């Protein structure tokens, strides 16, 4: 009976994790979908722009789903940290130091996104700090649990 209860609880946990991951992914994709409509004029000028953003969204959603599925384990914090690092590296490589040059017909278009990049990096660092705190908190809780169960 206890085993059956444990099994059903585990199943419920997995279903809830899956549900949460799906909802989060759908919301994130929804936001991307809405924003992408606003960015259609850029896609017309820069053909590779949409592809670049799509790759980012796919990888980010994948890491988000994996992070959600591994919730309650130490791996969740690994994936959350990986997600933050991915965002930082992606911004560095895709924004090319914050100054983007786009040739369009006979015109050379330059967009200076250094301010955006700086703020995004600071926010990513804040996110990284949050992941670290979460991991410390998780390990702390585990140590406390182990300590109290040994008493």
């Amino acid at each position, binding site marked *: 009976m206890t085993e059956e209860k444990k099994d059903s609880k585990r199943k419920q946990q997995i279903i809830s994790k899956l549900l949460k991951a799906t909802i989060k992914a759908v919301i994130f994709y929804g936001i991307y979908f809405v*924003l992408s409509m*606003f*960015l259609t*004029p*850029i896609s017309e000028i820069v053909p590779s722009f949409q592809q670049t953003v799509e790759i980012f969204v796919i990888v980010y959603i994948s890491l988000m789903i994996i992070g959600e599925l591994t919730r309650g384990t130490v791996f969740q914090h690994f994936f959350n940290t990986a997600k933050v690092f991915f965002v930082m590296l992606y911004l560095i490589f895709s924004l090319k130091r914050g100054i983007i040059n786009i040739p369009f017909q*006979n*015109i*050379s*278009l*330059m*967009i*200076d*996104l250094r*301010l*955006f990049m700086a*703020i*995004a990096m600071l*926010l990513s660092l*804040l*996110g990284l*700090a*949050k992941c670290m*705190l*979460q991991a*410390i*908190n998780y390990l*702390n809780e585990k140590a406390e649990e182990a300590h109290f169960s040994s008493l």
Partner: protein
Amino acid sequence: MKIPIRMISIATTFFWFFLIVFYVSAVYSMKDVQFDFEEPQTMLTSRNQMLFCLPIKIDNKGYYNIGSFNVTTKISDKEGFPITQASTFIPVIERGRQTTVTHNVTINIDDLFQNSQDYLFNDMELEVHETVGMKLAEVIPIQASTNFSMPWGAPLYNFTLGEIEYVICNLTHVTVTIPISFENHAFFNLTGSLRMCMYNSTSVLVGEGQTRIEVPQNTFYQEHVELTVPSMGITEDGYFEMYFSTPFFNSGPTVISYD
């Protein structure tokens, strides 16, 4: 520790949302900003400088103000030697407002001809580097630049001296008739005078004469200059020094040899 973590989480989510929405909306609102570059006009100023006027109409129907709008024009010759540079700057174009600005580029023709006489006698292409910059929402700097060439029409295109005629005027002097021809390819009407000095093979000034020139743009000019010179001073070969004097420029000496 859970409360600080939650606070950081809320703060980062809020700032990420604000940052992305602000940047996307600022870029998106550019579709509602209209730039209308009207037909450029060429004229002459009271200081006899060549003036290019480019009226630009900006209709900002976007969500944000546009800051630091500037247009810069650099004109150089084929070798990259700078001829002139001009900038027009508008600190802020408020949203919902229509602004018209005239971008003026002046070229001092006199200085131009002093630098090189090629501009006087030969048609050529000038390189124009045009840059338009602004700050979207007064925060995001963007810049568009392009290069194109602009034709330059020489005012004395294909300037040639015809067959020189010598007519004995009296025992001591000879009348020398020098036919001259050219085409005025410049955008202005050429009015002024041409002074010719005749030197013999020993570089001794033997005579000089002057003629008035009035040549509308894109027309052919053919006239002659008459000089009365002492018959003793004439040699088989020598050279002419020519001085052009117009309201727009003074040029000379231009040396053309004869034989």
